[in-house]
């Protein structure tokens, strides 16, 4: 019974995206082949895969640097959200104002202010981390605020126990918002990777995916560029996998059917 449901899960959840992806690759491959497209314009998928494999260690190193910048920025934005929301959530008015600002900031293409960051932090890791923090903060903050605003019958329990602010926060408010924090992480993590690569593209440390993509594309090394793009995709998938794992860890206090 259990085995069967697992099989159904794999077939229904995984088969459609794999199928779609395969069809996409097949069309791409045959288009390049039949139209005889030059490798400088658009390399075929199998060549991109070959490039990815042969250049794996360099791409791996660049991807790790990119991941590092994205992760630090994401971490900083999360920490900032927790600290600010943690000190304002009990005031509805203040939270409301900040919520509006964040909703506005979220709608803006934050990467566009990257040049300003470079004025303060120079071109490199510091500026990248700064722009990721700025870009992710409004997304994360909204989720955290919504999580902290939650209510349940446990509030009366805490009141009856005459719990102080610290215990209310640590023992109730924070763990109660975990599902919101996870949703925030799911929404932020891929965006953090994208912001990082775009910012690197416009001026980042040489040994990062974004800077490499720009270098290779301006040199018309299209195949190398596509190898790096594939690496960026793999990085995105890896990050998604990590977030899912964290998610699973935090869901252990709910029944499996939930």
């Amino acid at each position, binding site marked *: 019974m259990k085995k069967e449901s697992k099989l159904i899960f794999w077939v229904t959840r995984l088969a459609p995206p794999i199928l779609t992806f395969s069809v996409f690759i097949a069309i791409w491959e045959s288009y390049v082949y039949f139209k005889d497209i030059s490798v400088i314009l658009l390399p075929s998928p199998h060549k991109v895969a070959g490039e990815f494999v042969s250049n794996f260690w360099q791409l791996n190193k660049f991807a790790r640097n990119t991941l590092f910048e994205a992760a630090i920025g994401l971490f900083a934005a999360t920490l900032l959200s927790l600290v600010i929301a943690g000190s304002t959530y009990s005031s509805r008015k203040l939270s409301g104002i900040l919520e509006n600002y964040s909703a506005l900031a979220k709608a803006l293409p934050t990467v566009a202010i990257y040049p300003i960051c470079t004025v303060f932090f120079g071109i490199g890791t510091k500026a990248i981390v700064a722009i990721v923090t700025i870009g992710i903060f409004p997304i994360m903050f909204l989720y955290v605020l919504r999580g902290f605003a939650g209510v349940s*019958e*446990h509030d*009366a*329990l*805490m*009141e*009856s*126990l*005459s*719990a*102080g602010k610290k*215990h209310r926060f640590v*023992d*109730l408010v924070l*763990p109660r918002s*975990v599902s919101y924090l996870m949703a925030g992480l799911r929404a932020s993590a891929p965006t953090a990777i994208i912001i990082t690569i775009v910012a690197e593209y416009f001026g980042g440390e040489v040994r990062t995916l974004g800077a490499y993509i720009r270098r290779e594309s301006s040199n018309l090394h299209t195949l190398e560029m596509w190898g790096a793009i594939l690496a960026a995709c793999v990085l995105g998938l890896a990050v998604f996998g990590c977030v899912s794992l964290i998610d699973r860890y935090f869901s*252990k*206090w*709910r*029944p499996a059917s939930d």
Partner: protein
Amino acid sequence: MSNEIGLEAIGVSKIFDTPTGTLLAVDDVNLKVPAGEFISVIGPSGCGKSTLLRMFADLDSPTTGSLNVANLPSSEARIQRKYAFVFQAPTLLPWKSVLKNVALPLKIMGKGKEEREKVAKEMIHLVGLEGFENRLPWQLSGGMQQRVSIARALTVRPPVLLMDEPFGALDEITRDRMNQELVNLRATQHQTVMFITHSISEAVFLSDRVVVMSARPGRIIADIEIDLPEPRTAESRLHPNFSAHVTAIRGYLVDAYNAPQK
């Protein structure tokens, strides 16, 4: 001991402001419960029982009148942790193990980990849940969860227990067993208890005294001393006084439902 006050309500009324106007939930309740007494409150649903209990707990404030708990104004009693509240739902923190849930009040009081886990383990033993310390709440049945919440209430050894239909969601057999356990627990701890229930037989079995409230606005319409031999056991339910009390209270409840609504 006997001249100390467990619970006292003096001219307590509660008016709620609702979108459709004001609502008189509790109307001029006067009640005095000596320390160590077990008192049950019974009445139609919506008559203000929970509201009265929450006011004793300082979770709601009265519109008029005042309430005392363990010889202190209710707000002071809450701050000094003179009572423990047992909710209708177990209200356990789903991310904490049974042990940590039971130890929570002591953690909030700032006790060290070793001490609070020692006391929590005693309380878990008391409610018959040893071996379940590391389970998470969802892994327990409803009855077991409510036992955990009672263990949690007992950890601070409060002089007063405020219980809002704690066994309301349990099946009849589990409820009878929990009633017996509560009686046994109190044989060693002698807290003042205010116990809210819908069940007449539960109220008679547990209580020294049963108070009947009218339909909204909640007023006390009867105050009955329960005369049953101690200690209460399964035999108590067969005692002639038991059915006499049940019958009398049923009569008052019929009146309660028929009471004019304001």
